[in-house]
């Protein structure tokens, strides 16, 4: 009996550690398979796109999805990722229409749909920008095991720490693989092609 309680305790600690690991070790580099800490990456969410239209996980199903989290105040990583997404869509040709490309803001206080619309107008119009209430953004970040944190800056304002990898999801919304920031262009393009033609 005591042994059984001990085992239950071990399992509880493992679950807790798994949860902590998921919180602090998002799918940055490597991985694959279902997810981190036994949890799957991805899940239900309810946000709006840059035109104010509602988008949920159901909206994205039927096509595979490349999804990344960022914010428009980001001077380097996010414009680079969006520039690459634009170039990948161009390189994919007709296949590009068989894929969802999604940019989710982790800074909903500043990234309104209108701000996203203006910002994203510099990139491929097929890239959907998603934002919502802080709670809705926290929920999708939790589902995708994405780390983000608001960091105040001396003298006013704030910046966001955030996971930089792109997550590839299949047409049923299941996690397939990440593309780490800095992955060579062609290798990322090959991953996208495999996602479209599994």
């Amino acid at each position, binding site marked *: 009996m005591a042994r059984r309680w001990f085992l239950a305790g071990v399992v509880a600690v493992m679950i807790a550690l798994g949860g902590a690991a998921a919180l602090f070790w998002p799918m940055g580099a490597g991985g694959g398979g279902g997810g981190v800490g036994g949890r799957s990456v991805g899940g239900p969410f309810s946000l709006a796109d840059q035109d104010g239209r509602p988008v949920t996980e159901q909206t994205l199903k039927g096509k595979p999805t490349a999804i990344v989290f960022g914010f428009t105040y980001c001077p380097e990583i996010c414009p680079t990722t969006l520039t690459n997404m*634009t170039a990948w869509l161009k*390189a994919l040709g007709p296949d590009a229409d068989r894929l969802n490309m999604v940019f989710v803001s982790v800074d909903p206080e500043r990234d309104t749909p209108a701000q996203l619309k203006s*910002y994203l107008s510099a990139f491929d119009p097929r890239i959907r920008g998603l934002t919502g209430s802080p709670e809705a953004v926290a929920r999708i970040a939790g589902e995708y095991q994405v780390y983000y944190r608001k960091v105040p800056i001396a003298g006013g304002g704030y910046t966001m*720490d955030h996971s*930089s990898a792109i997550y590839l999801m299949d047409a049923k919304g299941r996690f397939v693989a990440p593309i780490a920031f800095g992955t060579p262009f062609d290798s990322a393009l090959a991953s996208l092609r495999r996602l479209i033609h599994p």
Partner: protein
Amino acid sequence: MSKPLFAGRLAAGLLVLSAGFSPALALDVHQGALILSHPWSRPTPPSAPTGAGYLTITNHGSAPDRLIAAASPAANQVQIHQMSMAGGIMTMRPVEGGIVIAPGATVSLAPGGYHLMFIAPRRPFKLGDQIPVSLTFERSGTVKLDLTVETPPAPGDSMPGMAMPVDPKGGH
């Protein structure tokens, strides 16, 4: 100007010309013991609340210097930031106390590390634009220079397909 000096300068000029494909060299700015080279910036999307500036600073003096402040008429504010990536998580912080350039050292403000952070640019930075900036060094004083807006190099490799300018039509 003495003749040998002039000849020397002419030779140096010809050397630059014959090196030819090193515009950064021709644009080097000397300030005190510092040489500032290849000042550049990246294009920004419309209504982007921030922009980034980069350059390389070499200290030819015998004392350390420090980049302590930056300002520009092209933005509300310019801060000195450092970006870093750990475990796939991007963080960005203002640099406390400025960037030290040790004697003989070269410090690069470049993608993935230190950068000038333009807050609230007055208008989007477009390819070919010159963005005026003034940099204040503890020892060498304040220097004004222009950042040229260029296509950023690819982060992962140097695939030409990667180096795409921000295209308002989305590449179609």
